[in-house]
């Protein structure tokens, strides 16, 4: 330690500058049964981890039983007035593992040169998804007049099946090639309800988001690992997320043919069939097909998918193996890492499809192990299991168009500039 007072002041100033210009991240997680106690425990861990630097933003991911106003009140009491963004999910992922119950918080102390804004659009059931997306985009842009924008993260309700239109609306406001990363929250198949957290509010049937700008470095990767099988077919008639005809026949015929089952039997096993063998939409120039889950079968033989399939799309039935899915996880991680460049990774946000979680069954922490292998054991990580993921496809080329994905793993790596 130097004894020169001037040097000491200079050192302190340099340290302060370093603190103010660098990003600090801390993670907290609790599985205590009492939701308020769990929130207290997790926040306590995160605050200690920040080592006296002031928190400027919090991401909160919880299992459904923690979605209670009292919990958010406890969070606000402990964290003060800092912006909060998050949602409920039927599973949480942190460095510690994969959990069906728990409260996870990621506290960020962002540099003064990083700008952000959080917002939400409520009651989406009463609005068109396109307009909702536009409204959210406009709200997020508030105060960003002369600030370069970098990335937007959005968290939407599970019940919003028109994810494609929501993205279109957001892109209408933020720009067609602006990178959007996001997810639709998943529930525990019980009450068919998901919750979004924004500051002091618990919302349903809404979409909340954050827009980052200024000094902000990120990289992302999205992959699924499903491979095309069988003949290519054409969507000869469709409307939004309803495929009416494939190759001029009722859409359900495709599945009836492949699985040798009638519509009734198909409907009974639809969830399993849909997650193991989704439809793949061919996108020229892309290595992977865009996946679409089948949500239900209509009486006229139309298939309702999670996300739109435009008319004249070339589609194929998709199949995967554990190996191909895990290879996709590795590829998504490597894309995110490469995309981030040389900047030091500060933390990861993972949006992993709930379908992938179901398929992994007992070994549901396999993907987490793969992620930790690529990014290192101690890189802070927080994630949820989702019912649809949003991300641009051409992640390497940066400004790719954002799509609504199914059954994919979406990895967002945030790093220092």
């Amino acid at each position, binding site marked *: 330690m130097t004894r020169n007072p001037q040097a000491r002041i200079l050192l302190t100033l340099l340290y302060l500058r370093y603190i103010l210009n660098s990003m600090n991240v801390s993670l907290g997680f609790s599985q205590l049964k009492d939701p308020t106690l769990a929130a207290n425990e997790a926040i306590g861990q995160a605050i200690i981890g920040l080592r006296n630097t002031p928190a400027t933003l919090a991401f909160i991911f919880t299992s459904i039983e923690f979605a209670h106003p009292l919990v958010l009140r406890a969070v606000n009491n402990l964290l003060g007035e800092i912006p909060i963004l998050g949602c409920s999910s039927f599973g949480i992922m942190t460095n510690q593992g994969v959990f069906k119950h728990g409260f996870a918080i990621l506290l960020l102390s962002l540099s003064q040169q990083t700008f952000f804004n959080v917002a939400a659009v409520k009651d989406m059931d009463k609005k068109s998804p396109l307009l909702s997306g536009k409204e959210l985009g406009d709200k997020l842009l508030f105060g960003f007049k002369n600030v370069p924008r970098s990335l937007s993260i959005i968290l939407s309700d599970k019940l919003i099946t028109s994810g494609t239109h929501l993205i279109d609306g957001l892109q209408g406001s933020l720009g067609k090639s602006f990178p959007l990363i996001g997810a639709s929250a998943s529930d525990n*198949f019980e009450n068919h309800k998901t919750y979004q957290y924004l500051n002091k509010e618990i919302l349903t049937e809404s979409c909340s988001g954050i827009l980052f700008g200024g000094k902000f470095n990120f990289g992302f990767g999205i992959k699924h690992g499903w491979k095309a*099988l069988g003949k290519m077919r054409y969507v000869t008639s469709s409307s939004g997320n309803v495929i009416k005809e494939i190759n001029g026949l009722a859409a359900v015929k495709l599945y009836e043919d*492949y699985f*040798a089952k009638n519509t009734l039997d198909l409907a009974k096993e639809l969830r399993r*069939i849909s997650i193991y063998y989704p439809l793949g939409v061919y996108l020229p120039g892309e290595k992977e097909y865009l996946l679409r889950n089948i949500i239900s079968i209509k009486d006229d033989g139309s298939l309702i998918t999670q996300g739109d399939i435009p008319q004249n799309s070339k589609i194929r*039935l998709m199949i995967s193996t554990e190996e191909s899915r895990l290879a996709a996880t590795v590829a998504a991680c490597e894309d995110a890492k490469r995309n981030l460049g040389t900047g030091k990774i500060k933390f990861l946000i993972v949006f992993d499809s709930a379908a992938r979680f179901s398929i992994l069954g*007992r070994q549901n922490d396999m993907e987490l192990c793969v992620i930790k292998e690529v990014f290192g054991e101690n890189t802070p990580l927080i994630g949820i299991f989702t019912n649809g993921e949003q991300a641009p496809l051409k992640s390497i080329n940066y400004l790719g168009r954002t799509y609504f994905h199914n059954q994919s793993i979406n990895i967002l790596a945030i790093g220092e500039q």
Partner: protein
Amino acid sequence: MTPFAFFCIGLLFAIAILGISLLNKVQRLKELGDKVTALNFSLEEMDEQAKLIIRTDMELNKAHEELDKKISGLDTLQKLSREISTTLEEKQIFKKINNQYVEELGFEKSLAFLWKTLEREFHLYLYLGYSQDESLKIKAAINANKDYFLDLIKSGSTASSEFIPEGTLSKNKINQLFLVHSFIICPVLAQEGDQGFIFVGTQNVETSVTKGDQEFISILANQIGQTLDNARLFEKTWRSQQELEIKVEERTRQLTGALEEVKKISKRKSDFISSVSHEIRTPLTSIKGYAAILLASKLGALPEEIRSRLEKINRHSDELVHMVNDLLDISRIESGKVEIKKETLSLRIIVEKIADLFSEQLKTKNISFSSNLPEDCREILADRSQIERVFINLVGNALKFTPQNGKIDISANCANKIIQIDVKDTGFGIPQDAQESIFEEFFRVDNTINQEVKGTGLGLTLVKHIIEAHQGKIWVKSKVGEGSTFSFTLNAA
């Protein structure tokens, strides 16, 4: 050849070439068409193969899922079983079942009820995945339909959303009652005490209950039943033990009180004896002194009749002094006033001394005296004067009660640093019923021999006290007409 002819020939030639070329193209088109047909056929074939692959893959996935579920279920059951089986309190058994276990078994809701015969209603022991209000409402509904559930318990059969036994509520009714889409209800059959049932369910419309699920829940219910039996047995045993402990404690308190009372009385008795003995000894000494003076004719010659009376007074006074001394010794030992000064003593020397002491009487009654003292039993750790009194008393008694030409034998044997000494005679023997009381104060066997042989009834009491003061034991084995053996133990030196 005219130019026209040349032209015609050229035209014909060109037509022929064109025709040949056309024919070639048609041929190639036909070949390409065949190739396209073949490719389409291959594509169709590959599509058919793709269908087969998908169907096989689906079967494999199903099998994999089922296997995965079974492994997970078995793992969960093993963990649960370990947790439950170590529980010995009825309510704690159900507390060991938590959300995580139920979820690992593929369900998110669980309830457990036990039928209380006295109250004639089902009591709720576990609720998972329900709020308290919901669980209480379900409890009320179950008690309203208790007969169905009692029948289910009685029949011992499992009900599930896939199979409902006859006479039970309908699937829809159960779904409504428990607020689920799929369920399993399995009786908890304990051998003794209250029986009940465990319920697991899910609201997930995509979950269907399999045979494997039913088996798992059935195993869990059996495990709970067995653990309930164990817990109840433990409770019963524990209660009996508690009752027994209370009784033992009560009895111990009573005995301690009685012992204290006995000690007080004993002390009072010892004090009394000590005091009385002292009081008696002083006048006795005077009586004896005066009798001695008179007998010595220091006050003049005495007529024979007076002399003989005085001699009697003197003899009886001696006996009385002897008795008083014994009583005083007993009282001193009892109250711990006598200090036992242990030293290494030669058993052989003591026995020789005793033989020497009684040699005159032995000779008079023609009683043979022998001793058998092995090499390793020759040294004892004892107070010399006290232990000599023991030998004097025991050999003296043997001499008194052994008729002419009899035998007295002293033998010893040693084990674990304890020496057992036996004084054996060929006397009249002691009746069985008197053997237990022989060491009591003033006890004398009620028979003709004792009427002839004089004694105070204090000798053996004193011997017992001395041996016990040496941390030894004394006992007697005797048969009337054959003789007695008095045995006692002392520490070897």
